[in-house]
Structure formats: C-alpha cells, structure tokens
C-alpha cells in the first residue's frame, strides 16, 4: 500500500498544501441520532456559506462551510433549537447568513409581495370575465 502513497502525495500536493487545519469531524460526518441529524440538515440547507457563490453550507466544499456545519451539528446535538442557532448566527454574522430572511422592517415588502401579487392578479383576471357579471 505504501507504494502508491508517494505519487498520491505528489499529485495531491495542491490540495494537501492547504494550510487550514483539518475540519472538525462533524463538518463531514452525521450525528448518530437520525432525528437530530435531519433537524441539523434542514437548518444547514437554509444557512448561507459566507464565502461561496450562492451555496448553502449544506452543499459547499469551503472550509468555513465545514466549520459552520460542525457548529450546527454540535449545537443540535447539545439540544439547542434550530431557531436559537439561527438567531445566534444572525447575531454573529448578520442577516446575510440566513436564506430564510426573518420578517422585520426591512423584509416585510418581500414577504407580503406574493400576497399582493395574488390579490392584484385576481383583480386583473376578473376584468376578462367582466361581461359575465352583467
């Protein structure tokens, strides 16, 4: 087995030369409890990888995403609720970190827009049925 280690090491050099420390185990391994893992997974899918091109931390190779996955899994394993973890991350990194923008002064136009579109749309669509009402 040793025989192929050297060429492997040479070929892998650009990757292995990465100075960052190896990611914590929970960055890339699941929690034992499938219910907690599912909860963690659902949360990770809604958190933004801060250095990536529009990916969640659940689908990114970046090391910060790995760190954040480890953090989410540790806190879920410790029994913390997903909402509390999200709030903690928002306090730390700002609202940029969540793909699920919380409803507040800056986001209410976003969240109410679909309802407004639907109401306006129904009103406009009724115009094409107008003759019926007569």
């Amino acid at each position, binding site marked *: *087995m040793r025989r*192929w280690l050297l*060429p*492997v090491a040479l*070929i*892998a050099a*650009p*990757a292995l030369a990465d100075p960052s420390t*190896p990611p914590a*185990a929970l960055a*890339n*391994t*699941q929690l034992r409890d499938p219910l907690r893992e599912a909860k963690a*997974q659902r949360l990770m*899918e*809604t958190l*933004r990888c801060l250095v990536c*091109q*529009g*990916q*969640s931390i*659940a*689908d*990114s*190779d970046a090391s910060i995403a790995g760190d954040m996955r480890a953090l989410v899994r540790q806190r879920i394993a410790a029994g913390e609720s997903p909402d509390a973890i999200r709030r903690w991350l928002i306090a730390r990194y*700002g*609202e*940029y*970190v*969540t*793909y*699920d*923008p919380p409803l507040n002064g*800056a*986001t209410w*136009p*976003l*969240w109410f*827009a*679909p309802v407004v*579109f*639907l109401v306006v*749309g*129904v009103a*406009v*669509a009724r*115009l*094409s*049925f*107008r*003759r*019926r009402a007569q």
Partner: protein
Amino acid sequence: MIAEAGLAALWFAAALAALQLVLAAAAVARGQEALVGGVRPVAILQGGFAAAAMAALIAVFLASDMSVRVVVENSAAAKPWIYKFAGAWGNHEGSMLLWVTILGLAGGAVAILERRLDARTLIATLGAQAALALGFYAFLLFSSNPFDRVSPAPPDGLGLNPLLQDPGLAFHPPTLYVGYVGISVAFSFAVGALVTGQVGPAFAKAMRPWVLAAWIFLTIGITAGSYWAYYELGWGGWWFWDPVENASLMPWLAATALLHSVTVLATRDGLRAWTVMLAVVAFSMSMIGTFLVRSGILTSVHAFAVDPRRGAFILALLALYIGGALALFGARIGTVRAGTTFEPVSREGGLVINNLLLSVILGVVLIGTLYPLVAASFGVQLSVGPPFFNKAAGPIALALVVVMAAGPLIRWRRDDAGQLTGRLTWPIAATCFAAAALVAFGPIPVLPTIGLSLAAGLAVASILPVIRRHPLRTPLFTWGMVVAHLGIAVSLAGMASDSAFTKETLLAVTVGQPARVGPFTVRLDGIKPVIGEGWSALEARLSATRDDDLTVLRPQSRFFSTPPTSTSESAIATFWDGQLYTVLGQPDANGRWQLRLWWKPFVTLIWLGGALVALGGALSLIGRWRRERRARMRDYWA
C-alpha cells in the same frame, strides 16, 4: 488576421442592423410596404455577419492564438479541443457574442420564414429586432470587444475555469441562449404589432411557432443545466434558487404563460393587450437576467469578468428597451380594440387562471432575486434563498398543477362545473389513492405528500384528452399538450420523491470499510491516482451492493493545473428506481477518506419530465406546422 476579420464582421453586422432599422422605420412611417423586399435581405445578411464573427472567435480559440486577450485569459494551448471550441463562449466577451449572434440569426430566421404576418407588421418587427441587436452590438464593440489583442503575446494562456471543463459547456450555453435570446422574436412581434395596431388571431398564429421554438430550447437548456449542476457541484442538489438559475427560469415562466395566452388570442381573439404585454415581459426577463449575470453584481460561476462600466451599459440598454416598449404599449394599446371576454367556467377561463398563477410565480421569483440587491443599495445585507422561494412559490405552483389537470378537460366558450367535476373523477380518485397510500406507507413531510398525490392526479388527467380517441386522428398538437403536461407530472413526482425519500450518508472510512446508504452497502476498495488532459486526480473504487447486485463507482477528487483548482467529480449509478450518488472528499490525518453518499429514489424523473415537456413542445410545433402546410396546399389547389 482571423481576429481582425471577426471584428470587421461584427462592425458590418452592426452597420447592417442600423440600415435595417432605418429602412424599417422609413417603410412603416411612409407606408411603403414594398420595402419589405429590401428589409428581409438586410436582416438575413446581418445574421450572417454576426455568425461569421462568432465563427472567427471559435477559430482563434481552436488555434490557441495567444495574441487575443480573451484566449489568453480563458484558454490554454494544452486543452482538449472540445474545451477550446466551447471555451469560445466560456467567458464574458464570447458569451455576449454568442448572445448577439443568436439575436441576429433569430432576426434572419424571421426574415426568411415568416410568411403569415402582414407586410407592414413584419417590417416593424424586423425593425424592432434590429434596434435590439444594434444596442448589443454597441455593447460588444465599445465595452466587451472579444477580438482585442495583447502585445506581446504570452507563451500560454491562463486556462478555463475547471468547473466549466465539462462536455456540458459545449451544449448548455448555446441551447439555453437559443431559447433565452430567441424569445426576442416575441418581443419584436409585440412591438411590431403595437406600431401597426394589428393585434388579433392572425398575429397570434404567426407569433405562436416562434414562442414555441424558443420555449422548447429554453426548457431543454434549463433541464440540462439543472442536471449539469447536479452532477458537477457534488452535493446532490439539482436546483438552488441561485440568481443565475432564476434568470433562466423567469423568461421560461413568462414564455409558458405567453404560449397559453397566445392560444386564447389565436382561438378566441381574447387577451389581446395581455398577450402583447407578456411578449414584452418575456424578453425583458431575458435582458434583466443578462444584466444580473453579465454586470458582475452577482458572484457566480456564470459571472466572468467584473467591470462596473459594463453593468452600467447593459442597465442603460435595459432601461431603453424595456422602457421604450412599455411606453409604446401605453401609447398604442388604446388603438387595440378590447378582445372578447369570457365565461368563468370555460377553457379560456382556465387559461386566464393559468396565466394569473404563472405571473404570480414570476413575480415571486423576480422580487426574491432582486430583493437582496435592492436591500444592499439601502445598506442592508440579507439573503433570499430556497426557504423563501419554496414557501412563496410552492403553494402557488401546486395550485397551478390543479388548474393544469382540469384545464384541458374544459370546453371552449362555456362549460358546466358539475360536468367538469364528473370528467375529473379519475384524476381525483388517483390523487386520493396516492395520498392515502403515502400516508399509510409511512409518514413523509406534508409538501412532498401533496406533490406526489397531485402528480398522480395530473398524470391521469393529462392523458384523458386522448383516451378513447383514435391516436392517429388526434391532432399532433393535442399530443404535444398531453406529453408536455404529463412531463410536468413526471418532473413533479421526481422532485417530491427526491425531497421525501433521499437517504444521505456522510462519513470517513478506511479502505475496505463498508458503509450503508438506503438499500445499498458501499465499500471503499481503494484509491489510485489517475491522470487526464490538464488534470490529475485521486480516484476511489467503490463497490455498491444491493440484493447481491454489484455496481462499481469511481468518484474522483480532481486537481487542475491551469488555473490551479480542485473539484470533486461525483460518480452516479442510475437504476430504474433512482440514482446512487457518490463523492470522494479529502483524506484526514488518520488515513481515512471522506465519502458522501446519497440514495435518491426516482430523482431521474425530474429531468425525464423536463425532456417530456420539451418533446411535447416539439410535437406541438410540428403539428401546427403540418396543419398550416396542408392548409396552404388546399388554398393553392383551390
């Protein structure tokens, strides 16, 4: 030399576009319809010169001419030829050149093929197409010249982004662009019809095949792009609500609505203003998407060079064309007579609701995509992602599925709600049966349960229009509708199944250690180095067994030298009932290898459904074309 020829071709194309615009404007203003004989060849020639410029750019890439700046920045002499060829549009300048080439060719195709439209509207349409092309030629020539030279020429180039070094690059951008930019024809038709006031069934029948053709390519482009992202990004996701994906989805939503409203206009002479508006909106979405992707305000694999001046240029074009078209709409729509109005329970009524729901989804996607940019300009940093889009657009999309099931079973003009419910017996039964089975079989989340149940109902409903009809006597475009609607059901089933039943296993293993994912046992047999063209890799050999059936998968961790980057190449095994998706990660300090394994039941239905939708569009297009040819023959002999 080739580069200069290409630049010259681009200037000629721009000059011809200017000529085309002036000729068309003069002809329309003075009512000289005979000038159509002059405008047509100019439009064809303009398309030809644009294509020649594109061919020249491909040639300099194939020749690895390192004195051309975009080649230096985006290619390398040692690349396989397919990536040199496709690399011609794997960069900002080249992709914009492909964009205007398709714009020019689309105008040329209208000039050659369009025979139904009255001469005056056709001239105005070709004028509008020339106006669009002119702006984008100017953008290329003044701010994104693909034929720019560097001196002295470096010995080799910097290489192509490894994520783009995939055969998908040869097909995905051209296919998507034919649809994305092809929809410009609908825009020009709408402008042409607004200028002449000829909005009616004849106009709708003339515009329909163009919309349909662009829509087919857009459907194929989005479906293939989704599969490319799925296997290339290495995390098993197939749609990310990424702004660039949304940029392709928005014109598709608008074009889908347009396809349905144009049918109402063609058949019942209703929805006149609305159809014209949608045609303007569809290509406006393409232009907004181009701005988002090409301006560099988004970071994405699709955004190449970032230069704020380019963004400002496209934004100015956007304001000019969309603003111009809307101003024209406001000024002229009064001259378009109001169309027919309808009974609520009628095919037309169903199509109106289809358009309403598609438009609301389009609005949701548009606001969700633009909101972070708007917020950022107010100093608020926030992200809008899958949770928003799923919550806001998901329920509307499911409502749309219900309308889609019922729509084709409703009669034109007037129908009876009670009889309609009767016709929907089987679809409703299928939906209830699927829902009951899913609830009994094992509780899965609510949204996928609804999705799968409605998919079953829609599948049954979509084939009802051809049941008990002679298959050969049923018009081909009816088959097209049936296949396209069935495709939506198939795709929806795949999406719901993927979200409900996917099994994920992430772990670090030593060689020889087995892992379980869904019904499979996956064992890491070994890791070996492999060398490819421009990359080296570590390749894992994984043996996956299910019920004693052995499948070998070889995922790789690849390292590219120019530019130095690493990517993970997933290995996917496809079975009749789903896909086993495997990715090799990094080794840890203890010599264990990181593996990511997913079992995704029926995930392939997502793209199979997309392909069926496109096939349905193609059948419909052929059906319409054949019927028209037959009608022309009859007129000829009569």
